[in-house]
């Protein structure tokens, strides 16, 4: 073999590689423009959602649960957001909705802003799993539908709100 020759790849292989590069590249770019990640970390998360390997961060979820049970609702939501950044886990979103309910609940009046956020989270749970049922015995409301109804009732202004006996009701 002379010095100015090299062993080269067969031409068809080069065409296959080239076509594969283009197909994979365009798919990846279309995915980025469709999913709109804001950071490199989000690219990974959204990628795992797209290929179906997304799962929540268990440690963060447990931390959120501990904070939820100690009535630190703001802290619990921060942990839940870290556990489920894509908001695709029904259980996590259920606790997020519940935390808004409990934080916004008032004996005389409810916090409408928090209840509205809770309602959005409850809707997310229904969208992810309409039949979701919590196994947490410490919760009075176990399904997203119950929670949603309670939040909707809390946002409505009715004559029933003037009932003095309502002051005796308890937070669920």
């Amino acid at each position, binding site marked *: 073999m002379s010095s100015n020759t*090299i062993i*080269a790849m067969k*031409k068809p*292989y080069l065409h296959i590689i*080239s*076509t594969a*590069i283009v197909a994979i590249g365009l798919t990846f*770019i279309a995915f980025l423009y469709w999913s709109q990640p804001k950071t490199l970390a989000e690219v990974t998360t959204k990628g795992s959602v797209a290929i179906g390997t997304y799962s929540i961060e268990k440690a963060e979820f447990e931390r959120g649960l501990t904070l939820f049970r100690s009535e630190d609702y703001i802290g619990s939501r921060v942990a839940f957001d870290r556990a489920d950044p894509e908001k695709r886990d029904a259980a996590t979103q259920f606790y997020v909705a519940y935390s808004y309910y409990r934080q916004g609940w008032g004996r005389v009046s409810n916090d409408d802003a928090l209840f509205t956020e809770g309602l959005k989270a409850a809707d997310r749970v229904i969208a992810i799993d309409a039949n979701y049922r919590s196994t947490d015995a410490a919760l009075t409301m176990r399904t997203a539908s119950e929670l949603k109804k309670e939040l909707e009732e809390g946002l409505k202004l009715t004559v029933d709100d003037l009932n003095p006996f309502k002051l005796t009701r308890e937070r669920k």
Partner: protein
Amino acid sequence: MSHGTEIIEVENDIIVVEPERQNALGVRYIILPLIFLTVTLLGGLRFGEKDSAFIFLVPPLLCLVFAAAVMVLFFRSGLLRLESWLTERKSTLENVSNGAILVTLFTATVQIFNSLMPEQGLPFWVIGFCFVWTLWNNLFSDFDVAKLLKSLAAMFALAFVAKYLVLANLVGPSEGNWLQRIIENPGKETFTWLLDLPRYAAATGYVQFFAAVLYLGGLYLTPPEIDE
């Protein structure tokens, strides 16, 4: 065969060819798609002013029209000879591969327009009109490859300067409330409001400069003809 080299061995999946030809194949089938894909990726990328978060802007329809016009220019000027890139004399695999490169060239061209055109407001229409004017004139002119490349480089350079140097410097900072911004930067705040200019981080300009240079480099490396 040139330079005194020749195919000296053909054996199963391995052939021996001259290095120049192998390099040309590598550039055409590996480097070119990578260059155009990189431009496609970066062309719509902006960085948020406050947190430098990625913002991927989908190209407006107008960019696709401009890119189609530019592709026609490429074929008319001879920068690309379509009958050589896609022909029944080649295998299906080779045609698919060549077609894929042309697709990446088209998407990169779309994204270059997406990069260089202002996103919204009056500047979008003014720069858009300038592009229409230039491309429309070019479509009916007699071009050779060198003239076309110079014309495109000049058009893109002017658009880049207009968007990332002139208009970007008319955008006021977003810190403080509306009144505070008016008092501190009355001129910039007025232009931002009047021209509906978006606020992006400075990194955007650098990335788009890189994308534009890469695109022109890709065009330079694109062979007009694919030899048999």
